[in-house]
């Protein structure tokens, strides 16, 4: 193994971030300070947290409490390797999911004298760069600081080593998953023929929805605490699973069982080596990605008489809408738009049926219904608006070179946002009505409110999506500049709250949503509340649609990419 090659490949992966950060490309100079800021920051925060915990443990006067804290810290240390493993798997998988569909990022430089082992090692380590590595540094800093204060330095050294090994184990697992996914997905598409597009759409949605539900279940509030408790307790019970051997080894070390420590440690290292060997072999066999030739149609060309034409769209506008519809159903990186609404339906549903604990109460189900009807559509409109121009990627030159006017561009893009978001709202609404069985008044009012939010937020985010569009596609399509996305998502939240406020007041004053203290306001009629909301939403839509038009004019004039 040529280690220099591995380091060079990792550095290429790090540098790929330059393009998506929108740096100036001529006479490029990288600030080392900025590059290591994330890791340095994580280290400093870790040290601060560690000192805080250590001081707290030291100053506690009660000896019993002190012993309890000491014991808890040790228990937590034991569960760290498995926890880091789980979170590293999730994060590295997230990284891979975001890169799915981007051929260039998957394609190793196979024509260079680089072995598959070198490539696999570099890819595995590069997967950890970013949030996983920062989290590792933060955790290690906490552990090191606390241990020094508690006089447990050997345990700290062992724990940090176990954390690093766990992260590597997780990343190797992700690497295997990535290669198998490329192979498996390619085979499925080839065998499904014409249905491949829909197989891909449904398959990707299912996979991503399940992934995110698991992720939210792990990370949301009480679930994460439950996870830590479960890992600490369950590790011993599943000692035969190789993924917990690092944690077992650490537990044995803490108990002074040196033979067990060595056995589990050795077994862990052998397991990591075996996994790495498998990953390298799989990469050698299936690593070169060839996009499967998906045949969507055969035979005679039969142009359709556009339904969109009947709705008042020109042939140009209808063509762009049709093209974008295909983009959102065929490109995996765009399917995120559908995932969030789906997760927003499934999470409350699972809560409702008590999957995460106790089922919700009747008043809770009202809140749940409001949530299901309002959030998915509005969220979809905001997300789509931000990405619908940037999703064009490098083929955006078609818009600059063809006779597309700003008015047409905004009209067709806005129409697609509204169509998709309204469909999402209707689907969510039907599910919500079936579960919560609200009164007709409430159902209609919330449906109207949801539509108003879609129109308003769609216009706001489309204007932002035009000015903040980012067309770089490698290593992954960014679509919108992060700062623009952050600022406008915040603005969307503020505007949504303002528009929804009259209805919220109605809900609070009429007791639809119970409050511990009665709201000292007269009851607001439902229809008055919706009317006030409608006026605010329409003003917002009008103003931001105009802004979007102006932005589109500038966008088409400043066509340089």
């Amino acid at each position, binding site marked *: 193994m040529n280690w220099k090659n591995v380091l060079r490949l990792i550095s290429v992966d790090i540098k790929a971030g330059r393009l998506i950060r929108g740096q100036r490309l001529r006479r490029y100079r990288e600030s080392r300070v900025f590059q290591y800021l994330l890791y340095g920051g994580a280290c400093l925060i870790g040290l601060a947290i560690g000192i805080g915990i250590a001081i707290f443990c030291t100053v506690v006067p009660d000896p019993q409490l002190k012993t309890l804290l000491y014991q808890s810290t040790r228990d937590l240390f034991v569960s760290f390797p498995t926890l880091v493993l789980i979170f590293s798997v999730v994060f590295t998988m997230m990284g891979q999911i975001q890169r799915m569909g981007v051929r260039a990022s998957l394609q190793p430089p196979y024509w260079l004298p680089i072995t598959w082992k070198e490539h696999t090692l570099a890819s595995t380590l590069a997967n950890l760069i970013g949030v996983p590595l920062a989290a590792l540094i933060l955790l290690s800093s906490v552990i090191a600081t606390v241990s020094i204060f508690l006089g447990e330095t050997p345990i700290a050294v062992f724990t940090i080593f176990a954390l690093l090994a766990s992260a590597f184990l997780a990343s190797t697992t992700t690497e295997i998953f990535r290669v198998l996914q490329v192979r498996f997905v390619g085979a499925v598409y080839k065998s499904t023929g014409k249905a491949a597009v829909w197989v891909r759409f449904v398959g990707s949605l299912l996979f991503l929805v399940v992934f995110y539900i698991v992720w939210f279940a792990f990370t949301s509030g009480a679930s994460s605490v439950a996870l830590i408790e479960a890992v600490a307790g369950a590790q011993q019970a599943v000692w035969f699973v190789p993924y917990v051997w690092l944690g077992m080894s650490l537990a044995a070390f803490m108990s002074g069982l040196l033979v067990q420590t060595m056995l589990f440690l050795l077994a862990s290292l052998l397991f990591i080596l075996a996994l790495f060997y498998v990953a390298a072999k799989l990469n050698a066999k299936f690593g070169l990605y060839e*996009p499967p*030739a*998906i045949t*969507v149609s055969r035979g005679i060309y039969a*142009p359709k008489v556009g339904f969109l034409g009947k709705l008042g769209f020109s042939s140009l506008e209808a063509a762009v809408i049709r093209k974008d519809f295909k983009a959102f159903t065929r490109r995996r990186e765009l399917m995120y738009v559908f995932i969030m609404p789906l997760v927003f339906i499934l999470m409350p549903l699972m809560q409702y049926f008590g999957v995460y604990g106790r089922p919700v109460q009747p008043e809770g189900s009202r809140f749940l219904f409001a949530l299901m009807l309002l959030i998915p559509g509005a969220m979809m409109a905001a997300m789509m608006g931000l990405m619908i121009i940037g999703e064009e990627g*490098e083929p955006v030159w078609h818009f*600059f*070179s*063809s006779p597309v006017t700003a008015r047409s561009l905004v009209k067709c893009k806005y129409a697609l946002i509204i169509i998709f978001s309204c469909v999402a709202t209707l689907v969510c609404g039907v599910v919500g009505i079936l579960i919560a069985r609200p009164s007709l008044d409430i159902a209609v009012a919330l449906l109207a409110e949801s539509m108003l939010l879609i129109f308003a937020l769609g216009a706001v985010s489309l204007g932002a999506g035009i000015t903040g569009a980012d067309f770089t596609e490698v290593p992954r399509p960014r679509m919108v500049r992060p700062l623009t996305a952050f600022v406008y998502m915040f603005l969307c939240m503020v505007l949504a709250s303002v528009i929804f406020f009259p209805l919220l007041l109605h809900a609070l004053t009429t007791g639809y949503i119970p409050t511990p203290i009665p709201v000292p306001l007269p009851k607001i009629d439902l229809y008055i509340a919706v009317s006030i909301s409608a006026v605010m939403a329409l003003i917002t839509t009008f103003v931001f649609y105009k802004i979007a038009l102006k932005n589109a004019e500038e966008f088409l*004039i400043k066509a340089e990419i």
Partner: protein
Amino acid sequence: MIPSVESALKLRGVSKRYEDIVAVDNIDLDVEHGEIFGLLGPNGSGKTTTLKIILGLVKPDSGSVNVLGIEATNDPIAVKKQVGYVPESPRLYEFLTGLEYLDFIGDIYGVALSEKKTRIKEYLEALELEGREGDMISSYSEGMKQKIALISAFLHKPKLLLLDEPLSGLDPRSARIVKDLLRKLTSQGVTTIMSTHILEIAQAMCDRLAIMYEGRLLALGNMEELRQKARLPGSDLEDIFLKLTGTEDVREVVEALLK
């Protein structure tokens, strides 16, 4: 088609600068209707930028651009309607099939339904893409993508074709078809401005040529005029190009590399 008295393209004092690099330096250029005009020059000489300025993809820092009698800055949409463009390395919508892509392009340019259908069929047959038109573009080879890009430029019967390396990646048969097609279109009054590095093709196809270097027009004219300018009577375009761009000392370079 009856060519108007005005030139198909008129550039006056056009300049474009990217920070400290002058991409196009005060260019004056006239291209007549029904002419095949070649833009030649080493890498980074400003050919692609010039083509983009003509189409309105790049806004010049100074100068005027008149395309088919229309001031490009005043009415860019009117210009774009009459132009067919193939970029240097065309990035197409890879999630569409070839057919869907051409259908999209036809609709963008407002080609009538029956006409669109006939033209797409004819072009797909001519460039041997039949049978693959229903596959997603992501599975096409570079040559096939280039063919699709060329068809999309021809589809709406433009009056001006702007082609950046049009024959790149094409198989010999398809390249021949495209060349013959361009000549036929010329006889119908269609103007073609193409940039290429393949000097044999430029010499064989173009009525007039411009050699660009560091953003400037070094020479402009037909083959005979270029020979006179380079003082190389009877020589071919390669010798003229190397002499005018000051890069004729290739032998020394090769020898130095072989040391």
